């Protein structure tokens, strides 16, 4: 279990990740021996019930949480402390209230000390790509939830990170906006070739977006199974929904998640 996770070409390597929280009275195991290798360009979706440690897993990869034991590597370098080569999107858009959409996106550049002109060009590209044109100056409270999340996504993509980590990014959106955002994210992933790890509650979202779906058990979080998604690389939302392969996989996942919950 102590084997180095850095196989050649691995974007993210996790091996034997365990996280225990010790409170005064008891010890909780949030993650139990999680090992997973993710190749560059993959879109891995992680589904599991609430409290299975999915979010903690992302934070470990980002270097924001230290595992109790186990090894993580990002782009073949061991993770120690916060990582810069990533873009992070949370469930909440977490925008700065006092900045307009474009200024919020450019926060990424300012914090990193990136070249201004180049960052501005990239921001305009992203604004156009995500359909935020016309809202560059709008403050967060003037934007809908979906728009806010688009701004957060642009901010996470501004520095063209090789790895994008998303923690239930569309969980707070209504169903229609969510589908739309899924389609957009799929398109962006195809265009940028970024490695994406996305945590979600939604089986449909996991299957539609993922090239691989990882299913986790309730606390203590373990990986129960990993499913490759046998759908074309270029997906259309309506087509995928009516594809029998989608149905089969979604049913399998639902069954697996259901039995995992029932055993608990």
């Amino acid at each position, binding site marked *: 279990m102590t084997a180095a996770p850095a196989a050649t070409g691995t974007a993210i390597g996790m091996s034997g990740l365990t996280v225990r929280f010790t409170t005064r009275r008891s010890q909780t195991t949030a993650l139990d021996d999680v090992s997973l290798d993710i190749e560059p360009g993959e879109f891995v979706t992680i589904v599991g019930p609430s409290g299975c440690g999915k979010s903690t897993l992302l*934070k470990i990869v980002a270097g924001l949480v230290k595992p109790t034991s186990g090894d993580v590597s990002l782009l073949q370098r061991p993770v120690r402390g916060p990582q810069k080569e990533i873009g*992070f999107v949370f469930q*909440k858009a977490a925008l700065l*209230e006092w900045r307009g959409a474009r200024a919020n996106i450019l926060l*990424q550049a300012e914090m990193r000390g990136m070249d201004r002109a180049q960052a501005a060009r990239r921001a305009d590209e992203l604004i156009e790509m995500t359909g935020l044109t016309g*809202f560059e100056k709008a403050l967060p409270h*003037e934007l*809908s*939830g979906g728009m*806010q999340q688009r701004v957060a996504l642009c901010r996470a993509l501004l520095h063209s990170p090789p790895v994008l980590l998303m923690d239930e990014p569309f969980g707070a959106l209504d169903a229609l906006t969510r589908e739309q955002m899924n389609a957009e994210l799929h398109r962006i992933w195809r265009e940028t070739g970024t490695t994406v790890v996305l945590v979600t509650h939604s089986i449909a979202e996991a299957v539609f977006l993922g090239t691989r779906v990882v299913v986790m058990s309730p606390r203590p979080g373990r990986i129960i199974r990993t499913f490759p998604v046998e759908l074309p690389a270029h997906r259309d939302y309506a087509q995928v929904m009516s594809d029998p392969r989608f149905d089969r996989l979604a049913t399998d996942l639902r069954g697996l998640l259901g039995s995992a919950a029932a055993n608990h």
Partner: protein
Amino acid sequence: MTENSLDTAGRQAAADQAGGARAAAAGPGSVDAAGGLDGTVSSTVVKRQPGGGRPPRPTLGRRAVTFADSLWRPALVLAVFFAAWWFVAAREYVPNYLVPTPGQVWETMTTQWSELARHTVVTLYETVLGFVLAAALGLVTAVAIAYSRTLDKALYPIVLFAQVIPKIAIAPLLVVWFGLGLTPKIILAVLIAFFPVVISGVAGLRSTDPELLDLAATMGAGPWRTFRKIRFPNALPHLMAGLKVAVTLAVVGAVVGEFVGASEGLGYVLLLANGNLDSALLFADLILMSAIGIVLFVLVEIAEALLIPWHASRRAGVSLTTS
């Protein structure tokens, strides 16, 4: 032309009202709730699209209307108050040496204006200097407490405990130590105004969304950049509320300092007028003291409006009132 602009103002008023209702429903800073209102919000935004994503700023005319609207009720209350005062004093229901008529107060104010102005300037100077020092020291202390766990544990209990000591009771000691000059007054103003700045500053700095701080860490930004770009602007709404309290307290500090031992300032004049049973001068003096407090408070409000126009408390179109 005029008709046209009036019409625009009317439509803006309607849009602003809708905006206010939305802010109220979503609650300040509640991103999740705003997400829940997705449908309505996006439709409003889409309607605005031709003119750009942002609603236009209120015109000067509309702002004047809002201002007048916020003013007439308190103005009415004041008018009633003055009328009652005049009625009671002019009819001498209360002896004239206890309550002078508004006319007498006005006369005192105008005939002794040069003297009163000199004393007002002294008190104003003590207050402003005390307030500025309290704001600076309070902010530094708040940053230290918010950033360092050690300093939090070492300083915060002392700051809280020190607030229990009645600062006014320290005034005589300050006079013994620093004499009759301006120093003890300024120190007293600082001591009184310091506490609200620290408390609001700490609350503001601690209110930063932890996810934003996580995000800042993955952006590779150092603590100074994170402070400048995220934590400090985020703390401003809290801080400005504390500063508004602090500025009115600074006046109290300065005047109490003058009570204890001084040869100039409005507090000194007040004691003098009291000794001479000169109630007209006493009232004039009180009015000037209040005027200092009001003017400084309004200045802080204006600073707030300029610094945090984005904040929920400033969005409802209410100006110059504590909302």
